[in-house]
């Protein structure tokens, strides 16, 4: 009995294997690493939705060089060692051709050296630390999203316009918050040498786990500034805005700039509790651009998921198309060919035209800022008016980034 079953199995496999081999056309494999679990899993969920939409669209219109895309998603949990394990799984187990992802700046910074060792191209879509296209950059790592330096540069252009002279900050007490403030001081000082900044011990850096911001709000308000630059994000930002508005923070005594205030997950959660008329920035704003591509992206995304795309959804979506463009330019999906094709690649993504700079692999991309405004057509605050800062005006020159990529081979 056993023998018979075995022989049937063998025969079957002989019949089936060639059949499968013929019909399973080779695919292009893309590995995605995002935060899928824990406190910040909302970011991973958005990114996954954006990536899936892009993969569906590309596959429906014939794939990349005739090959379909297959997406693999792994959970980084926002921790560097777990993220690296996830990336290694994608590279060694799933044998992906391309990596896309990374939310946390700290994770990106510590994982990047390993990307170089695995010799696989990667497009970062969210992590904003200038260092991954700066001091720790390498020839395999690209970034499609707006980085910290670009966004802060845009903020300082805006800050100069407001005319406020004395600035302070509220930012999360980790590298992102501190770097944001450093860049803000540096750029604004360049633009207007007359500006003053409160010393380190008078600005507010609440630890990341803070839920009660009242002490910091008190501290900032009592220092009587003309302008406050806020780099809090996510849950911190939501808590801060609600507590600050009851304490009279937004009564107009000073200018307030939120570098990540226009993130859709924040606006959705706050709804009408977000005060109107505040300057907020983001890495992508779904209404900033009237291009056909953006309209189709926002339309399809909303139809499929019932919400408007966040910047993280946009980053993942755009990165898939960037890979497609590179593969078509190189007429290959071979890893080194992709790296070469991505260098200097100019293309359109929903947010506008971008260019992956040869020198540091950072995408030169526009920054969007706007004033919060109520709208009957949307479930949350929108931006009105919108200010668009052109990529070339806000991207620091390669010489300033500290990046030196040994290109070529």
């Amino acid at each position, binding site marked *: 009995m056993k023998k018979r079953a075995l022989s049937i199995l063998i025969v079957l496999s002989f019949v089936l294997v060639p059949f499968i081999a013929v019909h399973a056309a080779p695919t292009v494999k893309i590995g995605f690493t995002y935060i899928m679990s824990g406190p910040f899993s909302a970011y991973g969920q958005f990114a996954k939705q954006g990536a899936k939409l892009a993969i569906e669209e590309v596959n429906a219109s014939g794939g990349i060089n005739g090959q379909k895309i297959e997406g693999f998603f792994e959970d980084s949990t926002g921790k560097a060692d777990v993220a690296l394990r996830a990336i290694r799984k994608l590279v060694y187990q799933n044998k992906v051709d391309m990596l896309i992802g990374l939310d946390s700046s700290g994770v990106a910074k510590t994982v990047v050296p390993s990307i170089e060792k695995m010799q696989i191209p990667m497009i970062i879509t969210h992590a904003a630390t200038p260092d991954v296209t700066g001091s720790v950059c390498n020839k395999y790592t690209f970034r499609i999203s707006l980085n910290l330096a670009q966004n802060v540069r845009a903020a300082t252009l805006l800050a100069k316009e407001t005319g406020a002279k004395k600035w302070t900050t509220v930012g999360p007490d980790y590298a992102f918050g501190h770097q944001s403030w450093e860049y803000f001081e540096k750029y604004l000082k360049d633009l207007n040498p007359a500006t003053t900044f409160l010393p380190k011990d008078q600005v507010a850096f609440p630890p990341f*786990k803070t839920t009660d911001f009242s002490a910091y709000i008190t501290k900032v308000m009592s220092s009587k500034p003309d302008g406050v630059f806020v780099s809090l994000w996510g849950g911190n930002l939501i808590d801060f805005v609600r507590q600050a508005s009851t304490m009279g923070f937004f009564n107009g005594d000073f200018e307030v700039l939120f570098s990540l205030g226009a993130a859709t997950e924040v606006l959705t959660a706050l709804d009408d509790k977000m005060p109107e008329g505040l300057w907020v920035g983001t890495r992508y704003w779904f209404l900033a651009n009237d291009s056909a591509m953006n309209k189709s992206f926002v339309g399809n995304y909303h139809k499929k998921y019932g919400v408007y795309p966040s910047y993280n959804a946009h980053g993942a979506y755009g990165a898939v198309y960037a890979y497609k463009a590179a593969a078509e330019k190189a007429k290959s999906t071979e890893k080194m060919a992709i790296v070469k094709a991505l260098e200097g690649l100019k293309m359109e993504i929903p947010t506008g035209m971008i260019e992956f700079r040869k020198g540091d692999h950072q995408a030169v991309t526009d920054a969007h800022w706007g004033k919060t405004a109520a709208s009957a057509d949307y479930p949350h605050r929108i931006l009105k008016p919108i200010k668009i800062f052109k990529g070339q005006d806000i991207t620091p020159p390669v010489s300033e980034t500290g990046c030196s990529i040994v290109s070529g081979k």
Partner: protein
Amino acid sequence: MEILLLNILNGLSWGMLLFLIAIGLTTVFGVMGVLNFAHGSLFMLGAYLCMQAMQYFDSFWFGLLVGPLCAVVIGVLVEKYLLKKVYNRDVSYQLLLTFAVLLILDDGVRMIWGSGYHIVEPPAILGGIISVAGQDYPVYRFFLIVIGPIIGGLLWSFFHFTKWGKIIRAASFDDIMAEGVGINVPLIYTAVFALGTWLAALGGALSAPQQSLIPSMGEKIIIESFIVVVVGGMGSFPGAFVGALVLGLLESFGTVFAGRMQMAIPYILLAAILLIRPNGLFRKGV
């Protein structure tokens, strides 16, 4: 001067919230000898259930009443079917079991309500601001400052002046003797865990108008309430009160004087107290 006053108020309102969560933890430890890692998750559950009940009844007060009670049901199930089995086991097993409960509750809530942020509005009567020494201050924070001692006081009187309270205290001193004089100790344990759950969930519901709701919100608060309990003395009510006040005020004033080391404040407090008084502020030496 205003800064001093405002920081005292900030410290008090944060401290009183910590106090509510810590008394639940300390009661459960005092009676059952279990350090409940999932206490923060019950806190989180309270906030979510309050939000849900609030949407259902369209009233914050109903949410505050119903939400924590629903959490109690889950707490009782956890005690009856899981915790009961590890009372006599080493503390590391208890920690691991309650950690497993934490994982299940946190991820379960995420599966039900999603990973996005939610907010809860305070009721209109507590939504405004009042002026304190020329500074605007939210009414809801005064409410928190007042409600903490009220609930703490009620519980303290319950334990000291009612028959049931005395029975529970008896069981906490010596469960074998209590069993001997005819007290149903397992029932007492279940009741005490239900009480602890209710306190955690009430803390969550009360903090809901104050902070955004995410499934991991309990993980932030659990370590600080551990610290309050240890600093005050495990199982001690007045200890939890003083510990919460001290920690709340230190963290509030830390924003002014501690600079970059403010995140270390709770741990410095913890280590310092344990070195000076190994059993915490309010507990007799063993």
